[in-house]
């Protein structure tokens, strides 16, 4: 038993460092490029996710502005129809897969292990692999902008048969398919890691019903990703087989049925919208109690409604397909489940209101963003329930009313909550705080810009303006609403620019904050800011749901307990840290090369060449991947021991 303990990942006694062959060298750099390429620290990986997400958020935002410029006036020729198709395809793909999801992943990585009192995620190197694979996918999806193939232009849903080789020849869509495939691999790998971490790495006393709500929503989201992404994986495999090898999955003349793509896509696509919103709901459930100076109202109900949103989310996909002729029974069933899913969502809203009710509200920047979230998400929810009524939906389908709806839930919901989260946790992550004036200014500009952009689109949509058309005629009665929306989009752009400008300024020069600046309740705030590499010098013992609050009011008890645990841990050899590793990065490179081989390289025109360029590049990528993964497993999950007291003694 003792030996088994010593071999396990997180406990153990000092072992003799064994000399390793050159290929199994373990990097130890703590600063510089190598340290970032080989990092397995969940906080650094979270930071990498965050930076990438913000970069792509900027890219997606610029694409959105291009779309709005084109639609500002009737019969505009700012973009050609092809460019317009590329813009709306890439705007959606970028915002969903490369901005909101990785920004959520950044919070999962950075905050979740801190909230459960862990020192890292369960599989630190797998976590690094997830990030590098995500980056490879992001590169592949965007590669088309720089090649003569152009960017993908079949919409973020890439409905078959539009997306088959007959109607969309060229490599742009291959890149989209491979890119989304890689993003799926990255998301599933990361989610497996989060699930195991939450289930298995909780500090002593941290029962499931004491988990902070953000951690709960991480768990639900991770399960959604694990179970929903395989559907899109198969859809993409089938599309790729059609495109590369001439199979018949979506080839009508040979018995294929394009409706299958639509089903598979939305079996993934609808859980996906909960993947986008549930992390935000978790963030809001952390912020509201902190700034209301009250515990969360109805914690178990908030958790259960989050979980039931996750379950119900798998049974509503066909409400995206009310106009495909499913028949009365199917339509009615999906209309019913869609209305049912509004119930747990409404429950959450009432719980948030209950949390604030009678509280001592502190109107700090994160709180203002959280309040904005509740308003806007509620508006988006109302138009969502309108879509659930199938007869009404057949009028609204594919109109700007739908565009208005999902921007209210995606920007007003997901994005506002994540922006709130950035403000909330910024002091913990970097030890600095954005000034209240600039934070609130950015909120009001974003809030106004957002509503000016998307509120008029409801009316334009009800007046019949269809989505995904690159221009419209002046006599349709849509001109006024569109012009207002474009002006709003630029105000929104200015707001986002203020937000991030101030954020970057604060990162370098902002006011330093004290420990626990918001006087918060959850465990992560017990750490110094920024948190050290090993997070917790002593793994905390959890006594209450709001454990940091408990610790603040039971200091004598907690410090005695911590001293005891510190002594036990020292007897085990100190704080166990995993070694860094370069192989997750190499595996990501292998995946990138393989994907380039599949999606970007032309097949060799000479049929007599057995291994052409395309196959060769693909195989090289596969080989790099396999060798990296093998070396990764050979080097083992060893680690070293830290003794923070000694380091402090030296310095």
């Amino acid at each position: 038993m003792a030996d088994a303990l010593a071999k396990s990942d997180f406990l153990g006694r000092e072992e003799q460092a064994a000399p390793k062959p050159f290929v199994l060298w373990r990097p130890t750099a703590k600063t510089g490029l190598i340290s970032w390429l080989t990092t397995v620290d969940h906080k650094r990986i979270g930071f990498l996710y965050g930076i990438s997400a913000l970069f792509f958020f900027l890219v997606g935002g610029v694409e959105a502005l291009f779309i709005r410029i084109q639609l500002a006036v009737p019969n505009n020729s700012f973009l050609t129809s092809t460019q317009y198709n590329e813009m709306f395809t890439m705007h959606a793909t970028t915002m969903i897969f490369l901005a909101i999801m990785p920004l959520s992943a950044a919070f999962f990585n950075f905050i979740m292990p801190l909230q459960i009192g862990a020192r890292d995620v369960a599989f630190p190197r797998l976590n690094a692999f997830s990030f590098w694979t995500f980056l490879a996918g992001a590169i592949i999806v965007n590669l088309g902008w720089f090649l003569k193939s152009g960017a993908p232009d079949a919409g973020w849903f890439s409905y078959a048969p539009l997306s088959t080789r007959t109607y969309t020849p060229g490599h742009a869509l291959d890149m989209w398919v491979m890119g989304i495939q890689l993003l799926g691999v990255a998301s599933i790998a990361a989610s497996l890691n989060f699930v195991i971490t939450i289930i298995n790495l909780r500090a002593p006393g941290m029962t499931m019903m004491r988990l902070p709500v953000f951690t709960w929503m991480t768990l639900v989201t991770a399960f959604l990703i694990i179970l929903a992404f395989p559907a899109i994986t198969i859809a993409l495999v089938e599309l790729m087989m059609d495109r590369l090898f001439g199979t018949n999955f979506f080839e009508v003349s040979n018995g294929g049925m394009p409706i299958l793509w639509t089903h598979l896509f939305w079996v993934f696509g609808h859980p996906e919208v909960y993947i986008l919103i549930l992390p935000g709901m978790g963030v809001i459930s952390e912020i509201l109690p902190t700034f209301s100076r009250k515990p969360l109202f109805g914690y178990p109900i908030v958790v259960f409604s989050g979980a039931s949103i996750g379950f119900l989310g798998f049974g509503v996909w066909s409400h995206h397909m009310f106009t495909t002729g499913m028949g009365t029974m199917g339509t009615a069933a999906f209309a019913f489940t869609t209305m049912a899913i509004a119930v747990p969502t409404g429950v959450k809203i009432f719980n948030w209101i209950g949390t604030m009710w009678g509280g001592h509200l502190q109107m700090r920047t994160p709180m203002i963003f959280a309040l904005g979230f509740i308003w806007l998400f509620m508006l988006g929810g109302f138009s969502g329930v309108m879509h659930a009524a199938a007869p009404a939906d057949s009028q609204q389908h594919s109109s700007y009313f739908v565009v208005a709806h999902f921007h209210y839930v995606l920007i007003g919901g997901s994005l506002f909550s994540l922006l709130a989260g950035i403000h909330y946790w910024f002091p913990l992550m970097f030890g600095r705080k954005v000034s209240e004036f600039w934070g609130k200014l950015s909120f009001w500009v974003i809030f106004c810009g957002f509503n000016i952009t998307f509120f008029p689109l409801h009316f334009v949509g009800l007046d019949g303006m269809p989505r995904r058309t690159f221009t419209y005629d002046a006599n349709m009665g849509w001109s006024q609403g569109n012009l207002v929306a474009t002006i709003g989009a630029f105000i929104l752009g200015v707001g986002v620019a203020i937000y991030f400008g101030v954020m970057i300024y604060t990162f370098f020069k902002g006011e330093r904050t004290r420990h626990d600046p918001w006087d918060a309740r959850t465990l992560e705030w017990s750490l110094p800011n920024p948190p050290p590499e090993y997070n917790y010098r002593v793994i905390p013992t959890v006594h209450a749901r709001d454990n940091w609050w408990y610790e603040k009011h039971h200091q004598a008890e907690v410090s005695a307990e911590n001293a005891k645990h510190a002594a036990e841990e020292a007897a085990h050899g100190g704080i166990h840290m995993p070694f860094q590793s370069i192989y997750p990065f190499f595996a990501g490179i292998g995946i990138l090369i393989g994907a380039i081989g599949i999606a970007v390289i032309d097949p060799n025109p000479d049929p007599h060449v057995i291994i052409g360029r395309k196959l060769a590049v693909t195989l090289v990528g596969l080989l790099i991947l396999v060798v990296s993964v093998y070396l990764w497993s050979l080097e083992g999950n060893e680690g070293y021991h830290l003794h923070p007291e000694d380091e402090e003694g030296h310095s």
Partner: protein
Amino acid sequence: MSSTAAGAIDHHFDPSTSTGIPNKKLLMWAFLASDCMFFGCLISTHLIYRLHPPPGVPSARSVFSIELTSFSTFILLMSSLMMALAVNAIQKGNLKSLRASLLTTIFFGCIFLGCQVYEFNNFVFEKHLTITNSILGTTFFTLTGTHGCHVAVGVFWLMLMYIRTFQPRDSSRDLRWFLCNALHIVAFIATILLGMRLVLGVVRGMEATGVSAATLAHFARGYFAELLGIVVSLGLLRWLAQPRGAVGFNETNAIDVEMMGLYWHFVDIVWIVIFTVVYLLEYI
């Protein structure tokens, strides 16, 4: 019985985790949940398209050879038994039995893959069912091919695990072991590929001309290089498997074998489903 100094290890409880379930085991269960959805979508695709055949699609019964598939299904089931024995062996610290069970599992896995290669060849060249010429070919080859890839990954993993059981405990020989390890992998892959080619060659020869001394002689001449290669690679495998002092692989690695076992059993169960709904369903 135990190869570690500290006494018996509880293989079902890991005190360093909150639930007592080892992290790796939980990871594999969660991954298999994901893989369930993955195969669920593929199998559904096949079943949906099966209900709506366009005119001119060959009937599946006229293409399938249920005898061969039943045989390979049985072999794959037996490989699961061997896998379970392997897990049992390492949990008791019995390396010799572990290696034997792993090799048998690999062998059975290769028989299954060989049957699939033969079946695909037969369907394409004899029955003229290709991945492009009909919707049946499209869904059949994609589904069973994807499963075959899973089996191939499993065989690869089993092979690496088998080779890892020779990792010496004495770390000063690490570089030497590392090179041996690389050679071991190459020899093993060569054995598998050459073996499959030879067996399929024999089968094809026998199908063409029947079993006779002349056929065998012709075969030996035609496949001389392969025969030589497999003798060399088998010799290498034998040499590399010789005991060279204490190894580091012991009871504490049982979780690694068990995790692999979970994957292998899952792939086996998926095949049971595929065999039922793709093959047997056509004979009802």
